[in-house]
């Protein structure tokens, strides 16, 4: 079994406990061995870089150094891959690794700081990957499909990645920066009806609820509006920050705009666990502020649709031929 180093990030211990619980369950089902990096620290989110450059990278550098050290001890075949489940953590780790290599001045300073703690990190030692990437490219869609015991037929889901997974994508791991289809493919394998959600990589507002709430509410509103236009039952996300903003601030957003959206937002590992036949409680369902139960009740109510139906605003045009899909996509 391939072992991966795992960086959970702070949210997994608090606001995203449902993510942690469901990931643990899914990992068991899929034989995914995630070894937590020992004594990891916060990645700094989007805050530290706005204050200090070298300390911000040194903060991330400590995690990289610890992970690399642990990888060396474990010697497992996949142990040089560091998996992050949170988008901001994933980006920060990947960015530090990338910039330390690309800008030697930065790399040298970070290592100089790490040396005080008896640590060091050679950029490129670890492959930094997001959990979704590992699930789709290492575990594979077919294995995920095999494990489905309770297909999510009848559930219309909006796949929502947010920004920091497909962008800036230093290692070219994602199918697209704007309309990546990885999450769609996983959800489709679970039997869900996946809407072609045009806002799938738009921003949830990040830390804006704390800084400029009106800015945040508008970004949240756009996403809710978009998912609603496509008549989604549920928004499925890969990021604790996105889940928090769409879920916890949905009421406040409704109040602000006098709207009445009720769109439960859950983690993709939660719906995976559901499709794998796990008990919803064990997957962290119930911890969402916008109740997901009405949506989940739809499971099994409709036969699976091969393609999303035309219920969204984008009606299929008849008449002149449409251009073919991208050649890269055809290959896959």
């Amino acid at each position, binding site marked *: 079994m391939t072992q991966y180093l795992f960086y959970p990030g702070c949210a997994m211990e608090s606001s995203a406990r449902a993510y942690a619980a469901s990931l643990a369950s899914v990992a068991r089902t899929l034989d995914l061995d995630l070894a937590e990096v020992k004594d990891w620290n916060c990645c700094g989110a989007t805050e530290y870089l706005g204050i200090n450059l070298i300390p911000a990278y040194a903060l991330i550098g400590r995690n990289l150094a610890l992970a690399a050290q642990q990888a060396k001890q474990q010697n497992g075949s996949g142990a040089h891959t560091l998996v992050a489940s949170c988008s901001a953590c994933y980006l920060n780790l990947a960015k530090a690794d990338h910039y330390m290599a690309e800008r030697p001045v930065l790399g040298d300073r970070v290592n100089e700081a790490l040396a005080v703690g008896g640590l060091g990190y050679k950029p490129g030692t670890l492959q930094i990957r997001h959990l979704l990437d590992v699930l789709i490219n290492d575990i594979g869609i077919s294995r995920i499909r095999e494990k489905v015991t309770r297909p999510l037929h009848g559930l219309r889901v909006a796949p929502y990645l947010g920004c920091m997974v497909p962008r800036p994508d230093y290692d070219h791991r994602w199918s*697209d920066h704007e309309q990546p289809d990885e999450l769609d493919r996983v959800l489709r394998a679970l039997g869900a009806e996946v809407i072609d959600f045009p*806002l799938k990589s738009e921003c949830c507002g990040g830390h804006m609820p704390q800084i400029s709430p009106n800015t945040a509410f508008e970004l949240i509103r*756009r996403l809710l*509006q978009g998912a609603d236009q496509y008549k989604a039952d549920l928004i499925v996300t890969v990021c604790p920050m996105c889940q928090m903003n769409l879920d916890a601030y949905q009421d406040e957003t409704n109040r602000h705009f006098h709207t009445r959206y009720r769109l439960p937002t859950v983690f993709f590992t939660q719906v995976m666990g559901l499709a794998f036949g796990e008990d919803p409680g064990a997957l962290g369902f119930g911890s969402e502020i916008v109740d997901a139960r009405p949506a989940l009740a739809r499971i099994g109510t409709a036969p699976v649709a091969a393609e999303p139906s035309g219920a969204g*605003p984008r009606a299929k045009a*008849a008449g002149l*031929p*449409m251009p073919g899909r*991208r050649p890269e996509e055809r290959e896959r």
Partner: protein
Amino acid sequence: MTTQPQDPAQPKEKIGVYVCHCGSNIAGIVDVAEVREWAGQRLAGRGVTVARDYKFMCSSLGQELIEKDIKEQGLNRVVVAACSPHLHEGTFRTACGRAGLNPYLCELVSIREQVSWVHTDKHAATDKAKAVVSGGVERVRHHTPLEPLRVAIHPATLVVGGGIAGIQAALELADAGKKVYLVEREPSIGGHMAQFDKTFPTLDCAACILTPRMVSAGNHPNITLLTWSEVTEVHGYVGNFTVKIKQRARHVKTELCTGCGICQEKCPKKVIDDVYEAGLGYRKAVYTPFPQAVPKYPVIDVENCTYFRKGTCRACEKLCPTGAIDFAQKDEVLTVQVGNIILATGFDLFNPQKVTQYGYGRLANVFTSLEFERLTNAAGPTNGAIVLRDGKTVPKSVGIIHCVGSRDRNFNNYCSAICCMQSLKFAHLVKERTGATVYNFYIDIRTTAKAYDEFYQRVLEEGTLFVRGRVAEVTDAARLPGEEGKLILQVEDTLAGKQRRIPVDMVVLSAGLQPRADAKATAQVFGLSCSADGWFIEKHPKLDPVATMTEGVFIAGCISGPKDIPASVAQGSAAAARVLSTIDKGEITLEPVRASINATQCSGCRICNTLCPFGAISFLEADRVSEVNPALCQGCGTCVAACPAGAISGTGFSNDQILSQIEGLLMLNMEYA
């Protein structure tokens, strides 16, 4: 030449060294006076009798200086330290020739491209210039008088690519009475121009001006038109190329076909036409791409033909009134001899599906520029009606995005040159035919050729709304009232300094031009090279834009970079003129760089025989030695380098010349050590 009485200590060479300032180009970095003085003093023992520096050696006064010294001081070797030999070698050789010195006793060494322009340290640059001069002096001592090679030119020419540039080149040559093979890979000539409806800035109908040219090319007694064909191999050299052309089976007997069109009318198999209709329309499995096609004979597209796929149908065969359909036809390979080749293989349109944020391929009413050309073309899928993808709705508002896939480091970093004018033309056509509101989104408006900016003024006057800003995204996710069911262009209006969302019914992407997908393979067939972005490289971008580094192979049109129709036509004519001048002379002169074998030294080991890719070396069984055929030898020197007996020598690049140059280049090194 008279031999002067010699001091036995002095070498017999009398060398003049001329150091050029090139204004400040060289003199700004290299201390030319110091180089001149050093050469005059330190290289006196190596035969340098005259050393001068001059502001512009290539000026007539500079050349006269050399000529005067040759005549008055009896120089028998000349070294000019100036620009690259690729620029002015000919100039100084000619000057020497005028003064009665064999031109090949002159050596041009580069202290501009390879010294002053690339180095910043004046002292180091001056030192390097001295070393380079010293290398030239040592080398020139071993020069021998040579005569240029004369090669006969076969009077026929191969033109590859039947777009407007290729057609133009073929017609120029044919009209001058020369034989031309015009090879086109599609079933008809015409190229991209045949897809357009109107041409900027005059709004001439493209077909009206192109069709007569196509017909002339098709009927010309001097033009052999080979459509549905591709060049597979090229052998030989300037003057005498042997070219293999694969003619794909048309499955139509051209001698019987009248071009009546019944076969394509009756063919039951509809195929999306990705070439001529840019994917926006259909053709049949047996087809001529468009009504004015030249030649008029259709082809059967084997990949889509029901008979070839399933063994049944044969509708075309049954219904053809002249029995011209021939399913048994096979591909043929033709071999032709030509003296020159003109490549005019054109461009591909950038595929805007790569710019995901513009939604092409996902959002139905986003069109490419070529699709839009087909929409506006009276012969196109909508008979010229500008409508949405549903085939009927006339848009009330249209957004045209410039620079799609151009001027973008994520895709193509260069300006595609035609997109501004093309986008302005589109704006005009939309206005004229639909009265819709038109927005043009641009970074910069580049209207640099004749009557182009006037056209911009006209489009402004017509009320097209210009937004200076590169569109960030095209989306159908409505956010504000009025956006539902529309395509929303989100953009920063950089002149207003505000982000705007502009809902429209139709978006046209002015996609850039890029090299043909198979440009690299084509380059290899013809022994040419492409630049980093994939365009073919000219011999000189300014002074020799239609020649290539391969003698006898010329390029015209978009093969070397984006061009509009006037520029492509001009290049077609220019390439033809270059070819004509050599055909009319009957021969061209080439560098006399050739290998020869000294039979007395040859051990007959035959190593060289297999090294020559031109088959220029053969083994004489009778004498047990190898021999070089100078007509086939191209002068690469590989055999010279490989001969274990040192029996092969190469003119212009002999071992003595190169070894001495190495010594000369290292002279300064020795002094420092």
